[in-house]
């Protein structure tokens, strides 16, 4: 049996306030390699906090969190940054591309803080850009791309570091339905290829395509039955 990618035991996150806000109630959660999980819930329910804690952007205030077998609560800030860079890929709703850098440079940014040689990063970047179908736009600036293309660049950047898990925050939130379908298809392809994906979304269409569904309400996470085998 393969070890889980994410293993939470009573992980909680409270913002001190006053008043203190329990953004994430104590939660047990296991994400297995190859999982495709959709995190669904209304605004302010704690979805982003869940994703930030998963991505080591926020530290849990209680519980234990093992990522890829590493007990993260014992890591120094520098080690947390290192784990983020090497094991987690982020895809954001607003893409977070550097607008003055080319598609290739944006994607090759992944691995910069891993001391991966630039030549290696460029080769990997070209490879993943090809996978998301943007090779013809290799030298283009993000401002010349459509929303769907920008998101694909962001996905390529997340993949370029060869992460253990992909964390996506509303990846279709800024796209029209046609572009959303493209991105959803891309995620399905990635899932079929074995990527582990955890995705926060309002998009029920996208959530329905995920293998697992995690509903979040008032900081409480409940897992629905696996919607698809």
């Amino acid at each position: 049996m393969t070890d889980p990618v994410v293993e939470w035991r009573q992980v909680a996150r409270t913002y001190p306030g006053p008043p203190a806000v329990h953004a994430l109630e104590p939660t047990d959660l296991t994400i297995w390699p190859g999982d495709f999980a959709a995190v669904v819930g209304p605004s302010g329910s704690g979805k982003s906090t869940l994703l930030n804690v998963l991505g080591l952007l926020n530290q849990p205030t209680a519980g234990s969190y093992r990522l890829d077998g590493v007990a993260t609560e014992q890591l120094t800030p520098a080690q947390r940054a290192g784990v983020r860079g090497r094991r987690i890929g982020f895809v954001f709703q607003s893409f977070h591309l550097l607008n003055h850098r080319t598609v290739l440079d944006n994607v090759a940014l992944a691995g910069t803080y891993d001391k991966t040689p630039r030549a290696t990063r460029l080769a990997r970047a070209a490879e993943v850009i090809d996978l998301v179908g943007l090779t013809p736009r290799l030298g283009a600036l993000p401002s010349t791309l459509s929303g769907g293309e920008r998101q694909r660049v962001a996905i390529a950047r997340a993949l370029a570091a060869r992460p253990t898990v992909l964390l996506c925050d509303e990846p279709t939130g800024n796209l029209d339905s046609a572009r959303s379908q493209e991105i959803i298809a891309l995620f399905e392809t990635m899932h079929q290829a074995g990527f582990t994906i955890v995705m926060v979304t309002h998009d029920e269409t996208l959530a329905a395509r995920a293998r697992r569904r995690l509903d979040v309400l008032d900081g409480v996470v409940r897992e629905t039955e696996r919607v698809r085998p």
Partner: protein
Amino acid sequence: MAKDGGERWNQSSGTAGSSEPVPVAGAGRRRSLEPAVSRVSLRDQLREAIASIACRPVRSLLTITGTVLGCAAFVAILGLTDTARGQITNRFNELEATTVTVVDAAAQNNPSGQPYSFPDDVGARLRPLNGVVDAGVYFSVYATRPVLVPGQPAEAATIANRPQSDGLDRAAGASLTVWGAEGGTLAAAGAQLASGVWFDDFHLLTGQPVAVLGPAAAASLGVATVRTNPTVFVGDDSYTVIGLLSDSGALPELGNAVLLPAPLARQRYGPPLNPAHALIRTDLGAARLIARQAPYALDHSYPDNLGAIPPPDWSMVTDDVNASLNGLLLGLAAIALVIGCVAIANTTLVAVMERAGEIGLRQALGAKPVHILAQFLTESVILGALGGVLGAAVGVAAVLIGSLARQWTPVLDPWLLPLAPAVGVLVGALAGLYPAWRASRVPPAAALQRL
């Protein structure tokens, strides 16, 4: 694209088709479970900083404007000061090297006796000395205030005997003084004649009653030309004005003087009012030697009666002046640099706020706070260095243009050229420190939400 890319994806991961929980994409190169500390190469750090600067050229240029101006002011001030100092020093050196003054020391030590230690032929004795260009004695005498009488000497004499109520402007000469001088005095002092002639040997040796007026004296008496043979009266003695000075050169005290031939002045009005002086103009570099020889040439029996004043040492004076001037001007340059520093700090601080999303992204990609700090600090230092280089170029151009405009020889300390960029780097580092620190303190989750 993606739909038909499944095979390629599978090849990439090598894990497709598994019914078991699917290994992650990175499983093929399953890394150590030990957490890796984030790190970045210096080359990548520099590349990222340069790329960030290059992608905002206008903003970068505006940001470094303050530093450019500060460094340019720094270089220009020091360069122009050095250049001006060179000019001043040249002038001082010229004076230092070519002027010797001999004073009647016996008269100085015994003012009541008022002796006169100079011979009657000061110029004739000094000119044969190797290195002397011109020389002459000068002294003031006690005499009745001079009065101008227009017309011929004969007529003047008649008028002079009239009572005080004759309508002549006697008050005009109230501030004038009467001096005795020699033929070489004028040339030694570098004085210039506006019209007429200076005393020659004939005037001196035969005691001709002639006078030369200093520029202020001529103006005071209303004498504009010697063609009408104007006459001045000193007491009962009439003198025909044969020359008018336009510039009294190194002897400004002669400006309001009525100058008479030295032997005649002494004969008619007694010993000098104050100790007499001789002025010697020498060739360049001969002054100190002439200062030693002159007392012996003038009175070999009693050379101690005459004291040669050695040329003044201007170097200390100029050093003091330069130090004060440099301090003041460098203070101004420092203010300009502080302004440049504040400009970079301000712009970088704004950039930190604007680039919060980028900061969050870099942190999500594994950047530690120190990497963010280094990124912004490096950008700031590069901007400072650019400002320093441009400022040095502008400063050098200013020195060259300023020197050309005044036909000076530009003087620039070569150390200024590397120093200006170094100052720029320092300014950039100081200016970037606080904004970079602020950037490094932005929590990643908060930074990512700001865009």
